[in-house]
């Protein structure tokens, strides 16, 4: 029972972590809460579902294509809705992000309708594996595996490549990075592309896990992933991973011990408690106030 719930929790949590990474990276660089991120996650799920059900593509090919699509979507959104607002009030950028989010979810509602769509039955080869007394599906294992792989790739890009170095420099000090000859606009576009690709993968995995893709799935998932990013310490990449998994596991255990009607409140209650005890999140750096 314990092992079963733990695996369920980690699988759910790794999808939260995938979405949370996009929030945390964008926040780390331009201190914007990108509220449209949840809708990119939704778009990723829909594009993936379309590719699998109408073009009969293999699920992994569909995932790669859907990630590419969302990369472009993310970059375009940044270009249209955020770039011109970079020097103005952060709240204006936030409202702009909310506008994009309303736009995308109503677009999805118009195209796909209000009822839930699902991936075709044979989209993913499902098997149950028994470990001890736990039933673990190949889907759960794949979700954990794919998430881990994507996160390792991200860690590699951020730590070892030149553009990753530029990202770290820009998030450390935007102006100084620009003065050192880093093309800040390109770095920001790249960050949006990376985050959106991860969200698209997350969207497809969640669509498979719950067997439902809806126009408003981005809202709650986005909020919880954002909570996960803050829980881990916003701006910190390992923090987002830790926060996501932690949130997923607690949520699953909360439901398992009988608080299922409080499901959505569990994540936020933990968030509020952690913030009150450690205001910068679990792995967040202490921000020095300067006069």
């Amino acid at each position, binding site marked *: 029972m314990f092992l079963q719930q733990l695996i369920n929790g980690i699988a759910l949590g790794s999808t939260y972590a995938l979405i949370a990474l996009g929030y945390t990276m964008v*926040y780390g660089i331009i*201190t914007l*809460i990108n509220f449209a991120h949840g809708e990119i996650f939704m778009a990723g799920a829909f594009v993936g579902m379309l590719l699998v059900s109408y073009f009969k593509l293999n699920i992994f090919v569909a995932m790669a294509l859907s990630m590419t699509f969302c990369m472009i979507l993310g970059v375009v959104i940044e270009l*249209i*809705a955020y770039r*011109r*607002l970079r020097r*103005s*009030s*952060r*709240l*204006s*950028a*936030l*409202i*702009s992000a*909310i*506008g*994009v*989010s*309303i*736009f*995308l*979810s*109503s*677009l999805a*509602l*118009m195209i796909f309708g209000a009822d839930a769509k699902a991936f075709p039955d044979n989209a993913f080869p499902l098997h149950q594996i028994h470990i001890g007394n736990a039933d673990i599906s190949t889907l759960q294992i794949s979700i954990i595996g794919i998430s881990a792989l994507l996160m390792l790739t991200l860690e590699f890009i951020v730590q070892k490549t030149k553009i990753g170095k530029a990202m770290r420099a820009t998030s450390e000090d935007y102006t100084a990075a620009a003065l050192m000859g880093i093309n800040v606009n390109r770095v920001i576009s790249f960050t949006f592309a990376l985050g959106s690709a991860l969200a698209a993968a997350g969207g497809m995995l969640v669509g498979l896990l719950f067997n439902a893709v809806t126009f408003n799935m981005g*809202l709650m998932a986005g*909020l919880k992933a*954002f*909570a996960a990013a*803050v829980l881990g310490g*916003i701006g910190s990449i390992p923090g987002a991973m830790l926060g996501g998994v932690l949130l997923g596991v607690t949520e699953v255990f909360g439901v398992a011990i009988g608080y299922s*009607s*409080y*499901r*959505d*409140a569990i994540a*936020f*209650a933990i*968030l*509020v408690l952690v*913030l*009150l005890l450690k*205001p*910068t*999140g679990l792995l967040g750096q202490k921000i020095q*106030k300067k*006069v």
Partner: protein
Amino acid sequence: MADFLQSLVGSIDPYTLQILVNIGVAIPLALGLNVITGLTGQLSLGHAAFMSIGAFISAIFTNRLGLPFELNLVMSGLFTALIGVMIGFPILRLTGDYLAICTLGFAEIVKVVFLNLDITNKALGLQVLPAKTVIPMPILVWVVAILAIIFVTFLQSSRFGRALKAIREDEIAAEAMGINLPRYKVQSFAIGTFLAGIGGALYAHFLSYINPSDFGFLKSVDILSMVVLGGLGSIPGTVFGAAILTAAPEFLRFMSQYRMLVYGALLVCLMVFRPNGLLGGVNFTGLLMRALGRKAHETLPHIVERNEL
């Protein structure tokens, strides 16, 4: 008197009346958030939660106790403010986005709790009995809205309001000037949530049906958009924003299915082309003085809003 007011209300076309009342309900809500976010600079993403607390408390006061509506309004406002203080005291130590996410989290918790309580009729929502008052509801709503506008206008230019603005501009400098940060922040939160509670009570009695799901994140965002769209910290701006955003979905009704699509796109366009809000940075006192034929510089010099938030 009551008959006269009733006939006055009756003479307005019901559809227009409904939009007008919706605007009147939105004004105290938006002004409350304007005190917290616009004046004090504390970003709250959970204003709808306080609205829902006011709405449910007032509904219970009416349904179970049969309180007269005027008393009911004040009581629900005060009760909401009390909860606001209880919540505000611990969380207002946080700053910036951490505060924002904390208020968001709190709002989600309130929603889920209301969805599970018996007294709020769980997910079915609560039917609200007609308000016990002789004044017709639309008039009452607008009286409250105008009182709220007057109250916040005076608040803004008072010593207290200037302290709040100082906190918004620079917390460290404000503290160095002897402003007690926690006290002022909690007080501003209390005033903001008081107005939210009153707005919620009006909403509940005008619609006569409330459901916890109506007060989710999107409602908070709605109210925040009103404040930011009109111009942060500007009272005419907030009233204007409340009017526009309440009426916009109605005006867009002719394109029915594209309505929300256009609404989202409009929000983005407005922010991209007027990032400080429609009326942000407009000096109304100066304009008024000029219209009256006096020189504008006799009024206080216009302070350029800083865009740190």
